[in-house]
């Protein structure tokens, strides 16, 4: 059993928020209309607008055209169901909960590009860990950006968890080294590492991230147990490129899709699944620390199409 186990009630509670977030108006588009070429091209546009991506959209529309030709689908209502199935079918049954180490501490490494929402995501994860009765230690491994450490420190005070930090401009790997020692010495359940934002095009910074990961692996066997890449849901198809490069540098185990409460339609999860196959584990749906949910493809797609 991992964290964020997707209980039915949690989904239901969360779904309202997700629906608000990712609803893209498909239902109102399709209800009461008969499927025809014009509607198909409107659906195509709607899928593109939801950031589903050109490749996935093309394949879905091709299947839809075929089904229309074969007279399998006639009404708009059926189309809705068809689209949902086309999308949901892309995900296999899999465990999307955060990993937990057999012997503590569980190490969660969080990375992403500048401004994707790493620090807020770290705070959200920490809060839910705490609510499950786990002790958490934070590592402020963003020693580059001005006041990044202070930002995480404020969260650590609000959440009442311990934090390990370094001097501004110091080697982040050294901070992580100390944090690992501290996590072991203080017997905490989880160590959550917040790293500096970096563009995936900066090779030297990506190597730095690999080094951080290596330090963790050396200090704590089997760690990091979870490597979360924070992606900004409002980012377009570039998110895919980002994920590819980060995956190569630090072997990403899961994605935290942040800022889904924009009006971004969240279709990027489809492209992530199609191209990368890295599981989206958590979604951020708001500014407050409780606005985090486990990702579940079925309910997510329901939300996307029913609103």
């Amino acid at each position, binding site marked *: 059993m991992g964290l964020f186990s997707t209980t039915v009630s949690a989904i239901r509670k969360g779904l309202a928020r997700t629906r608000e977030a990712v609803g893209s108006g498909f239902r109102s588009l399709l209800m009461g209309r008969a499927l025809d070429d014009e509607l198909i091209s409107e659906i195509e*546009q709607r899928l*593109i*607008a*939801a*950031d589903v*991506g*050109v490749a996935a959209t093309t394949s879905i529309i091709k299947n839809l055209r075929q089904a229309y030709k074969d007279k399998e689908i006639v009404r708009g209502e059926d189309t809705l169901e068809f689209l949902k199935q086309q999308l949901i079918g892309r995900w296999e049954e899999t465990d999307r909960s955060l990993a937990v180490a057999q012997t503590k501490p569980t190490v969660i490494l969080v990375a992403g*590009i*500048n*401004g*994707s*929402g790493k*620090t807020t995501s770290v705070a959200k994860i920490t809060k839910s860990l705490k609510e499950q009765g786990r002790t958490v230690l934070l590592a402020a491994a963003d020693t580059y*950006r*001005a*006041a*990044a450490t*202070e*930002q995480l*420190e*404020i*969260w650590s005070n*609000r959440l009442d968890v311990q934090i390990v930090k370094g001097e*501004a401009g110091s080697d982040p790997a050294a901070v992580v080294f100390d944090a690992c020692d501290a996590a072991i010495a203080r017997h905490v359940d989880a160590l959550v590492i917040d790293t500096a934002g970096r*563009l*995936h*095009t900066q*090779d*030297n910074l990506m190597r730095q991230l690999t080094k951080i990961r290596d330090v963790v692996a050396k200090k704590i066997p089997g760690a990091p147990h979870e490597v979360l890449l924070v992606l*900004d849901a*409002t*980012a*377009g*198809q*570039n*998110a895919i*490129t*980002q994920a590819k490069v980060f995956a190569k540098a630090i072997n990403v185990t899961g994605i935290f899709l942040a*800022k889904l*409460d*924009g*009006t*971004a*339609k969240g279709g*990027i999860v489809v492209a992530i699944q199609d191209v990368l196959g890295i599981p989206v584990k958590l979604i951020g749906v708001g*500014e*407050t620390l409780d606005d985090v949910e486990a990702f579940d493809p079925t309910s997510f797609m329901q939300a996307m199409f029913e609103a």
Partner: protein
Amino acid sequence: MFESLSEKVQSTFRNISGRGRIDEDGVRSAMDDVRTALLEADVHQDVVKQFCDEVVIEAIGQEVTKSLKPGEEMIGLVHQKLIDLMSPPQGTSTDPIMLVEPAPTIVMLCGLQGSGKTTTCGKLAAYLKQRGRSVMLAAADLQRPAAVEQLKIVAEQVDTEGKGNVKVHFYAEPDKCSEYGKATGVAVGVCLRALGEARKAKVDVLILDTAGRLHIDNDLMKELEGINRALNPHQIYLIVDAMVGQDAVNSAKAFHQRLAVDGIILTKFDSDTRGGAALSVKSVTGAPIKFIGVGERFDALEEFHPQRMAGRILGMGDVVSLVEKAQAEVSEEDAEKLAEKMASGKLTMDDFVKQLKSIRRMGPMKQLLGMLPGVGSMLKNVQVDEKQLDQLEGMVNSMTKKERDDIKLLNKSRIKRIAKGSGTTPTDVNKLTKQFEMMQKMTKQMAGTGFGGKMKAMKEMSKGGGNLIPGMSNMPTLGGRGSTKTLGVKSKFKQRKKRK
């Protein structure tokens, strides 16, 4: 940046330039490919549709179909259309920041969370400072933890490290900070008091760093409107992440409707984004793109030029920007001195490193080379190892003054010492001296002789001196490295033996 988009567009047009003539269907199908490329680049679909439709109509109208070089004609047309798409409306000011009298000019930055407002504040301050304008940065982000602290550090850094001799001030009321949603509206008062301070300090420009907010968050948007009413900023800039997706248009529209945005600053342009946002945001708001952020350093802010950007999108390069960058780093006097030295063949190691340093100050090597026409797409898979350049500087720094002036002095033991001093190997040092000698010879010929000499020098260059920029050894076909490899004595002997 834009690499994948320009590659796709180019290959599309390469396909049609191969043909003699093109009919209407040909134009349409070529534009279909362009359409896909633009959509994949996250350009908003309405913008894409309009753009492609217009190109098709004009292409047929201008009788591209009758031309013998349809590919070139099409590129020209698309180029012009891209410029139109990104250009500010006729009659609007092209000045990046319009300064007003009496000072201070009030500039407000707004945008979504994580778009890069605070960093851009620092960049704008550095930009203005370099131009002799004093600035005050005011922290109006009371929501995000430590945002005030961040801006303070940024202001101090620009003040001490930025070029120019004017001061960068900072204003904040840290005690007003609160948790998310609890301090909404307080920022209006903070901004008003900041304006008072800015007047007292007689700064030229006051920049307000507002909190990141979603365009659908009514309370926070109202706060921005409040600041707008209270201070009536002269310029309101919307900060947009260049990697943003289809939703870019909606958020830009919402901000624009509420605040009548004066300009857009695109950030994180140094990523590999296909930059669709650049095309769509301008087109839906009508507000011109003023600046682009191209790196983490404070000086990594460029003025936006539609013409040059269109060239970059189509892989035509951007030589104008490159020359401007060079002019900012190298004075005319220095350049003349250097030319003299080159002509007389007296180029020293010191000159070489000085040159290298000023080139590197202009930005990462790969970014610079990408501005050369046709080089961009070639560079796609090339890693420019900046470390090797560091190493090179290290080697020169390990030489004595005499050695730098005359590298012929270098014997085995000196080379050994230099290698030791710079953490390299004697082979590395030898390589450097060989390349340097080659360059000396080459520059002398280039500078001193007429056309024939220049050709000869070019040939020399392709023989072995073409790899003067280290770390780019895997560069495809720039300088023809490896094509005329000289064989060692032993292998020549072997070859001869074989022939017999």
